[in-house]
């Protein structure tokens, strides 16, 4: 023993190795959610974007596109209010639950567990989680989804992947909304794609417009394909 170690031992000072993920509790809760969704044959989707990118619009468009092919339940995460839940119900969502976080900048697995209790899981094919508007914090909090989707918009510019690398790196698909505005805004497509591919070589990138519907069908088809894969497992 060194003199430092013997001195420490005298005072009963010890170093205890822990090596535990700081988010382990959340990950365990997320895994339970994942199992639950799998048991029901439901595709869980976590939609993450900055405020105003078009999360609710995309969900509304998806509900319409998948009408008759898949029943969508929606979990709406907002700091306050029920506006988005009302919108998706009006758009034809089979079921919807609103979570108001009262200030928390992201949804966590425990919140989703409670929301799943309130959804009619036996009669749903897809559960879409609209996370709190934020490209940072939600990235790190697993909810139990199969698909994490990063939504950006042409109006937000092409350097989003540089500023928010993590969400682009870990998403299963990237969606660029408001593509109808591309001629009017400063959006360097080549730079955006190069940056995304440095972070995520394989995720499909969907360009669409929730406003005029352009490109939404292709995204809907991909979602249905993912649902089929979940059920074939």
């Amino acid at each position: 023993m060194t003199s430092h170690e013997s001195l420490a031992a005298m005072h009963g000072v010890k170093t205890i190795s822990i090596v535990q993920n700081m988010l382990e509790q959340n990950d365990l809760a997320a895994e339970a959610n994942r199992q639950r969704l799998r048991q029901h044959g439901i595709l869980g989707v976590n939609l993450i974007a900055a405020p105003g990118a078009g999360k609710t619009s995309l969900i509304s468009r998806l509900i319409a596109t998948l009408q008759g092919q898949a029943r969508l339940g929606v979990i709406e995460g907002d700091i306050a209010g029920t506006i988005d839940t009302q919108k998706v119900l009006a758009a034809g969502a089979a079921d919807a639950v609103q979570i108001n976080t009262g200030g928390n900048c992201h949804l966590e697995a425990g919140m989703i567990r409670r929301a799943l209790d309130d959804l009619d899981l036996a009669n749903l094919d897809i559960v879409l989680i609209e996370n709190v508007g934020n490209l940072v914090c939600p990235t790190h909090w697993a909810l139990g989804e199969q698909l994490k989707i990063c939504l950006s918009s042409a109006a937000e510019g092409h350097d989003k992947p540089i500023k928010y690398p993590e969400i682009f790196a870990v998403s299963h698909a990237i969606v660029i909304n408001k593509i109808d505005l591309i001629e009017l805004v400063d959006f360097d497509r080549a730079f955006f794609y190069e940056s995304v591919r440095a972070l995520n070589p394989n995720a499909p990138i969907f360009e669409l417009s929730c406003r005029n519907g352009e490109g939404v069908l292709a995204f809907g088809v991909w979602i249905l394909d993912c649902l089929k894969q979940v059920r074939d497992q």
Partner: protein
Amino acid sequence: MKGYNLEVGRAAPLTDAIFMHELSVMTAVLDAVEQHAQQVGARKVLAINLVVGERTSFVDDALLFCFDMLAEGRLPAGARLNIRRTPMRFHCASCASDYEPSGAHFRCPSCDRPGQITNDGRELLIESMEIET
């Protein structure tokens, strides 16, 4: 329409939403450290060693602030929080080496070709703690 309001964490009043990200994770860290400390019969926690990667977007100052606030009255109170940071890195296949991005793009600083992100900087770990028995 179903719905509910959630309490903001379990902490004392904290109105600054900027710290919410760190508040949630430090709540979990406190619980884990306290549990481990109790398991080994610790009388006092002297230090907690964390590894926080750049890709995780947690801010040191905010982690420290939240720790101090949450630890009050609990076994880990007063412990020194040591945070080891690890950077985000990309791999350049052409140069066969890793690099940290410049900040303006993800291209290799030597050959200017876009690389691929590595798994560096993803850590979010409670590595160890120093206790007094």
